């Protein structure tokens, strides 16, 4: 019987009422009295030296408050990078300056050069056109391999080359790796591209900066997944402001997908300009601006080699990846191709020797950073594609090959620095085979062929690491932040509860799922619990939401704080019931004395806490507790996915006929929300696999700079999904046993789609062993007619 409330219930998402009825409160809905508007003049060339910048005519235009250029920011810091990667020779990564407004040079189309603050956006934009700008255009470096060449044009004149770092993980002894490959019975090699993506959340970025002269206090309203992180970075590294004078608010946020983790120049600008202009300053990104200023995702070019012995056991894996970082280091960009990617390269398999090599490149393109999955999709795509290719080359069943090499003993130490605590990869694959009716595939293929279509089946597995932690380890790996989280459980006198959480909800459903946990622990109705998030002045601290960490990390802090509350409430109940604290039990919102019929209700205890007339003297009045939680390890969700496609051999058009996901997310708080997270993730994965392609020309002009050319998946591009998460091996080290589900769909689906397309092509007699994403009709047609 499914539960109808508490942990395990598919409670309806309470936040959807306001989202779906137009009652949300997004950053662009916030207007502060007297606000001015900023328009950023952005570079329309990819690389150039600013030889003249005269703003005097612009300053004289109607309504203009002030025109800012890089000069105004000479005294402040640049945009910081939150993770220092150490290269394979022990040297720190090359870390170029990242100014708020260009200092001397522009390095990508969209790089902000000047900012006009005016009474209206129209006036700001008119004035920006009056800025006299001269730029000496320089050759641009766009291609990563070209950027790595000796003598390549330098994106940053003060760096020795365009290589941010040359990093390695796993086996350090090249000779040993060579030996494994030399002794292999079979080696499968694959070159592939993980296409660059633009996240395109429905809500573009917005920032409103406000400064109160009377109290010297700043408020920044911003579209962020982690307001405390923004406050910390902006105060400590960029503007040098005291944190207690700065409030950062991220109200309703219309989708983030990673791209709203980062601290962006526009946020720091609006905060700085609010004081400089003594007026609130608002910026709202247009969609076109988002394409050239939001951090992009993915963009790896890899060679992966898999060595197998004569019995088809995986004996070695080696990867060589070029990762595009764009023109500057975005906040967490450096960690994505390294610790979030290399560590996942073992996948679900017990390959004993793994070596991951990553060169991260600066190019004259928009900075690249985390996007749903961040590094893990890139790892999974390589691995699951090469395994599929190996199965085809060896003429063995791709599922059998995977099963044969699955890790089956846990905990398992991988050769790439992780310890998987739990998992049941065979069990999850069993669920997939049943849920996707793989036995019926042959009949479905015959039906497609009767219509003149080819049908393909693609299988893949994934393992991912969520809730990146613990802080002491990530600190050793170069993180410049901790990765704990915090929650305050504030019980009101009448028994209702406000929970201040550091996680930020921007579509995930925290406002529904988190109360389910607290209500379940106490035995009260979910409607008595409310989540407060997204405001540094209201919550204790928070590292925010990304990496599928919210429930595993912040939820654990919330559980710990709730436990403290319950402990204290039991003391009060014991006093009221004149019993020993050790004998007090809490069930269904009633405190009772074990073995008696004496009890007192939750509400009576909470009221007593705030009206402490009859109160234990050794206990403080009130009922509010805070907990910080730093996890002991990552969590390791895993899964197996199946995709079935139909391919029209005349046009190359691929349609997804079925998609089934079997995931192991450990324990599940709200199955409906988990389904929704998986649906959304798969939708984005299908987008990457079939449609989305952020492309530059050789001069660094963005070819896909709008939705006219950048293909977002639409409702009719995706099928009705089958989602099965009944395979559950609970996480062993957090109190809820949860693992995280936000990114799985985006990690697991691209290889399933591509494997299916290749299966279809091969079934049509065309021996194609790889096709790059997005698998567009024109690419399929070209591959089939080459």
């Amino acid at each position: 019987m499914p539960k109808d409330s508490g942990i395990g219930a598919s409670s309806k998402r309470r936040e959807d009422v306001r989202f779906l009825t137009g009652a949300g409160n997004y950053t662009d809905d916030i207007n502060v009295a007297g606000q001015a508007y900023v328009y950023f003049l952005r570079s329309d060339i990819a690389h150039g030296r600013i030889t003249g910048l005269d703003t005097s005519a612009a300053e004289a235009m109607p309504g203009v408050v002030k025109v800012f250029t890089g000069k105004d920011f000479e005294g402040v810091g640049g945009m910081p990078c939150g993770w220092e990667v150490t290269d394979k020779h022990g040297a720190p990564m090359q870390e170029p300056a990242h100014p708020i407004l260009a200092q001397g040079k522009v390095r990508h189309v969209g790089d902000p050069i000047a900012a006009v603050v005016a009474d209206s956006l129209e006036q700001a934009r008119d004035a920006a056109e009056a800025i006299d700008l001269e730029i000496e255009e320089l050759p641009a470096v766009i291609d990563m391999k070209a950027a790595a060449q000796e003598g390549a044009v330098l994106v940053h004149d003060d760096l020795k080359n365009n290589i941010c770092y040359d990093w390695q993980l796993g086996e350090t002894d090249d000779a040993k790796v060579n030996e494994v490959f030399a002794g292999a019975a079979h080696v499968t090699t694959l070159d592939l591209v993980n296409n660059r993506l633009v996240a395109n959340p429905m809500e573009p970025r917005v920032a409103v900066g406000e400064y109160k002269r009377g109290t010297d206090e700043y408020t920044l309203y911003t579209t962020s997944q982690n307001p405390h992180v923004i406050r910390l970075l902006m105060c400590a590294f960029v503007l040098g402001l005291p944190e207690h004078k700065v409030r950062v608010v991220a109200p309703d946020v219309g989708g983030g997908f990673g791209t709203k983790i980062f601290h962006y120049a526009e946020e720091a600008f609006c905060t700085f300009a609010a004081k400089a202009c003594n007026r609130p300053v608002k910026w709202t990104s247009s969609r076109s601006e988002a394409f050239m200023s939001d951090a992009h995702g993915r963009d790896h070019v890899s060679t992966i080699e898999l060595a197998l012995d004569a019995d088809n056991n995986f004996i070695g894996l080696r990867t060589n990846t070029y990762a595009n970082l764009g023109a500057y280091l975005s906040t967490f960009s450096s960690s994505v191709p390294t610790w979030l990617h290399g560590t996942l390269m073992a996948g679900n398999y017990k390959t004993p020797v793994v070596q991951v090599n990553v060169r991260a490149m600066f190019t004259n393109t928009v900075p690249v950073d985390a996007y749903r999955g961040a590094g893990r999709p890139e790892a999974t795509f390589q691995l699951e594609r090469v395994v599929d290719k190996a199965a085809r080359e060896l003429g063995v069943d791709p599922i059998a090959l995977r099963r044969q090499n699955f890790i089956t003993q846990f905990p398992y130490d991988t050769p790439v620095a992780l310890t998987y605590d739990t998992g049941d990869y065979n069990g999850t694959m069993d669920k997939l085979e049943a849920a996707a009716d793989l036995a019926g595939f042959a009949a479905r293929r015959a039906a497609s062929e009767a219509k003149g279509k080819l049908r393909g089946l693609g299988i893949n597995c994934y393992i991912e690491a969520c809730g990146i932690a613990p802080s002491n380890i990530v600190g050793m790996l170069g993180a410049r932040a901790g990765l704990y989280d915090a929650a305050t459980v504030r019980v009101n006198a009448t028994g209702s509860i406000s929970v201040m959480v550091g996680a930020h909800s921007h579509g995930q459903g925290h406002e529904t799922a988190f109360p389910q946990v607290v209500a379940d622990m106490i035995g009260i109705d979910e409607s008595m619990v409310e989540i407060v998030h997204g405001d540094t002045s209201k919550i204790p601290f928070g590292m925010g939401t990304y990496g599928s960490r919210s429930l595993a990390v912040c939820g654990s802090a919330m559980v710990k704080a709730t436990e403290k509350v319950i402990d204290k409430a039991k003391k009060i109940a014991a006093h009221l019931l004149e019993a020993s604290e050790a004998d007090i039990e809490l069930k269904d919102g009633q405190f009772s004395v074990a073995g008696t019929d004496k009890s007192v209700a939750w509400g009576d205890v909470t009221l007593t806490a705030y009206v402490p007339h009859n109160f234990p003297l050794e206990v403080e009045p009130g009922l509010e507790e805070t907990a910080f939680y730093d996890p002991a390890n990552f969590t390791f969700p895993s899964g197996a996915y199946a995709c079935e496609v139909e391919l029209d051999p005349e046009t190359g058009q691929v349609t997804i006929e079925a998609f089934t996901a079997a995931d192991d997310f450990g324990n599940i708080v709200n199955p409906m929300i988990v389904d929704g997270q998986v649906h959304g993730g798969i939708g984005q994965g299908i987008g990457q696999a079939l449609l989305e392609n952020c492309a530059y020309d050789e001069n660094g002009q963005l070819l896909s700079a709008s939705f006219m050319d950048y293909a977002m998946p639409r409702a009719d591009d995706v099928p009705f999904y089958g989602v099965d998460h009944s395979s559950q091996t609970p996480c062993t080290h957090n109190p809820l046993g949860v693992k995280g589900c936000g990114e799985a769909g985006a990690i697991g689906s691209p290889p399933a789609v591509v494997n299916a397309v290749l299966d279809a092509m091969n079934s049509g007699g065309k021996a194609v062993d790889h096709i790059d994403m997005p698998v567009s009709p024109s690419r399929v047609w070209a591959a089939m007619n080459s």
Partner: protein
Amino acid sequence: MRLGALPPDPRDIYSQMKGGSAPFGKEDEMYSFDFEKPSSIADAVAALGAEDAQALGGGQTLIPTLKQRLAAPSVLVSLSGIAEMRGVCVEDDGALVIGGATPHAIVAAEAAGSYPALAALAGQIGDPAVRNRGTIGGSVANNDPAACYPAGVLGSGATIVTNTRQVAADDFFEGMFATVLEEGEIITSVRFPVPQAASYQKFLQPASRFALVGVYVARFADGVRVAVTGASEDGVFRWTEAEAALNKEFRPDALTGLSINPANMIADLHGSKAYRAHLVSVMTKRAVMASL
């Protein structure tokens, strides 16, 4: 001619509800301009006489252009309030006449009985919002090389009626985004002879969902017309070799061995010249098949 009932203009409804102006995206991003909404063709023509005046149909192309500040008209003359330019009717000789300011959704609904292939074309343009605002006059005047209507107009051998003259489709389109329209001339209606059978086959450009290649085949008593959009650097064109073959025998097989020269085809992110040339053949065959 008898015109269909005027659908309400959503902008008017919105202003009545809010007692203010409609939120057309961010108007403050455009250069400022004056706005006129005449109720007769004569008044529209007069208003368009002003220097740098421009006609506004459904605004589905023009408004984005203005928001990007790629155009700076002094005055926009909306054609949406001109009753005589809106609606669909069938004339005594059987021709279908569509008012120049008629939105695609009206054509999709009201021409479905009289000219199903054209109604289906209109019903495949963009999304519901686009179809309820975008107009046939705007589409034909704009002559986007990937737009659908130009294929329907040329494939049907329609006549474009303006405030000053009537132009045969064969003489109207002059390459990408170019037509014979003079400054200030407005398309008041388009008259379509209705063929015995016709079909429009559109292969979607994955991002914009305009036509990567679209082929309109129409079979009249006196011959077959094949018009192709999306494919050529010269905009919409007639594939005369295919017409000749189909005039001999109106069957998909009649096209076997025929191919189009890729040299003039468009190449972009979404497809090479060769791919587009290939799609022209495939879509033509499918259009013939659907017209049998």
